[in-house]
Each structure stands twice: as C-alpha cells, then as structure tokens.
C-alpha cells in the first residue's frame, strides 16, 4: 500500500464523490415525481393511458440502464435532444428509477388492507382525504424501505454515467488507476467512498422509517 499516493488522490476522489452524490440525489428527487406521475396514470379509467404507463414501466425495466443512457446521450441529438453529460445522467436516472419506484409505491399502497379505505369512505372521508390521511401513512413504512433500496441501487448505477464522460467517482478512479498503476490503493479509497455514501443513505432511510412508524405498535 502506497499511503502517500492515497493521501494525494483523496481530494480528487472526494470532489468526484460530490458529483456522484449530486447526480444521484437529483435523479432520485426528480425520479420520485416521475414515479408519482406513473402511479397516478395507472389509476385512470381510460384504458390506453393505463396501458401507456404499464408499457413504459415494462420497457424501462426490461432494458439495461446502460443502453438507455447511451440511447439518450448519443441518439438524442438526432431527435433534437441535446443534453450535456450531467443533465443526461440526471434525466435518464430519474426516468429509470421512476419506473422502478412507481412499482414500489403502487405495491406499498396496495398492501394496505382494502377495508381501511372502505371504512374511511363510509365515515365520510373524500377520495383524496382517504388517500392522504388513511392509506398513505400506513403504506409509508413499506414504501420508505423499498424506495430506499432503489435509491441505493441508483447510487451504484450512477457509476455508469462515467461512460458518457461525467467525472464522477468511478470515472475519476479509472483515470487515476490508469495514470498511477496502483489499482488496489485507488480501488480501496473509491470503494470506501461508495460505502460511506451508501451507509449515509441507509441511515437516512432508517431515520425516516422510524419516524413513519413512531405511532404504530408492532
């Protein structure tokens, strides 16, 4: 182990790690809205809209994230869609995780017993009110866990953005391995940074989970 080198490259890797955090957090943020939109579309009575949402989710989940990224980045310009690499990473990440997240959200809402919403409706709650104050609080605990897992998957997948030349953690690590020929040192440091990021996210998920379940008895 060459510790001098490790000290030397740490600032570079930390800067790159910020890019990873930046891209991932923005993709998760926007992805949440995509997911909510997809869940909403699936409640429409007009069937073609439901089919569109189902089809979108199926296609996104059935094709590699990597190919989606390349398609939008290199194929986008021929549709007049020119995105800089970071925006492209955020947009593709958001639309990708949105599809997975909508399934997680729908699943957690459906896991709430139907009797709950029926009881609320018969007590005079409106449709929206039933959803917001009866169903969602009960779905929250499951939703937080499953969305959290997806967020962690997205952070790991954000390494693929290095292919379209975004200088994030994996790209920086690869470049440093190439220039220093010390793969073990660089790998150790960059793996450590991913682990720190992932454990921080896991901590946030756990806090949110505890907060969502603070009134439930188990």
């Amino acid at each position, binding site marked *: 182990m060459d510790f001098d080198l490790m000290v030397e490259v740490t600032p570079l890797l930390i800067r790159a790690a910020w890019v990873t955090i930046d891209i991932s957090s923005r993709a998760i943020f926007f992805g949440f809205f995509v997911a909510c939109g997809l869940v909403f579309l699936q409640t429409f009575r007009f069937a073609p809209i439901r089919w569109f949402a189902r089809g979108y989710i199926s*296609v996104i989940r*059935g*094709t*590699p*994230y*990597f*190919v*989606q990224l*390349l*398609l939008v980045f*290199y*194929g*986008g310009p*021929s*549709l*007049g869609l020119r995105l800089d690499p970071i925006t492209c990473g955020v947009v593709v990440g958001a639309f990708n995780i949105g599809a997975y997240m909508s399934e997680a959200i729908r699943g957690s809402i459906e896991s709430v017993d139907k009797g709950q919403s029926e009881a609320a409706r018969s007590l005079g709650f409106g449709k929206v009110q039933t959803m917001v104050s009866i169903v969602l609080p009960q779905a929250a605990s499951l939703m937080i866990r499953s969305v959290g897992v997806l967020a962690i998957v997205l952070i*790991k*997948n*954000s*390494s*693929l953005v*290095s*292919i379209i030349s975004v200088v994030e*953690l*994996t790209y920086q*690590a*690869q470049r440093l*391995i*190439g220039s220093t*020929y010390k*793969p*073990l040192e660089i*790998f150790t440091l*960059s*793996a450590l940074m*991913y*682990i720190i990021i*992932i454990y921080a996210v896991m901590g946030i998920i756990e806090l949110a989970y505890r907060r969502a379940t603070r009134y439930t008895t188990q």
Partner: protein
Amino acid sequence: MVFDFAPVITYFPTLLKGVGVGSLVAIAVALMSIIGGLVVAVISIYTKKVVSWPLRFFIWLFMTTPLLLQLYFLYFGLGEWILIPAIVVGILGLGFHYMAYNADIFIATIKSVSDGQYEASRSLGFGHWNTILYIIVPQAFIRSIPQLGNNMILMVKDTSVLSAIGVAELVYASQYAISVSFRPFEFFMVIALMYYVINILMELGQAWLERRTAYRR
C-alpha cells in the same frame, strides 16, 4: 429527423454476433455465480469464523460497490501481472459480482430450512456434510429459484456494461457500425429492443420454472 434503419440491417450480422458473445458470457456467469454462490454460502454458514468472516466481507464488499468499479479494478489490477483477454475479465468480474448476490440469497434460504430437517437426517444416520449436501441444500436451492431468476435477469442486463472494458457483446459490437453510419439512435433502439425481447423471454422462463417447482416449496 429522418430515421434510416438501413445501416442496422446491413450490420445486423455483427449485432447478432454481439448477442452470441453476450449470451456466452451470460451463461458462463450464470453457472459461475450460482455454483460459486452456493459454495460460498455453505462455507460461510458451516465453517469457523476464520473462514466465514473473510467470505462475508467479500460478499458485503461486492454488494456495496458498483459493478463498473469492480470491473475496472479487475481489468487494470490483473492487467498489471498477466495479460488476459477482456472477455475472461468480464466473466470473472460479473461472475464475482453476482456470486455475492446469489450467496446472500442462499444464506437466507439455507437458514430458512427448518432445523428439524437437519436433526431428522442426522438421526437417520447421515453425516454432517452429507446432511448439508443431500438434505439442506436441495431444499434451499428450490426456495431460492424466484430470487435467483430475478438476479439472472438483472445480470443479463448488466452484460451491456462489459462493453466498457472491451468485451465484444451487443453494445460494443455496435460501436464500429455506429461510428461508420452515424446512426446511434437507430442502433441503440434496436439494441434496446433486443434486450427487451431477451428480458421478456427470461421472465417467461422464470415464471415457468417457478410454476414447475412451486409444489416443492
């Protein structure tokens, strides 16, 4: 915005060759990760901490870091000592990655097999390792099939990442054709479609396998 799929048709044999290489890699990785994952799981459950903790550490390490980083590490790390073809690095990298994920599943399912099975088998005269091999592992394996199927579907999608280290699978095979024809959109559309078809076939296969083995669970 005019689409021209003619170059895709011209280079279709190249793409099919990419599918062939990708399938070969996927099959090798599936075998390696399932068999290896099972061995790792059995060893990490049934041996002393000196052996099992390093294994658990590697499972944890492979699950908390991105695949691409692991591939770069293997590719450049191994490249320092010996020159091995990219496809071997790709199979090893993807294999180890999914070996960790599969081992994680096997550990859970092996532990889910009731202790009574072990005790009954021992009292019938099976030895310790024979019980594990003939009684515990088969039951655990059947229970793992749904999750293993999910992992293998994810794995096939991840073969596309191997193009980053120069494995001549579908995405890599299209690079030359794209650079000659300047039609990235059409090529990537067709590639995505191919992956989608493979994915649907795998999902059907998984559903069939789950139905076939459901009575044993």
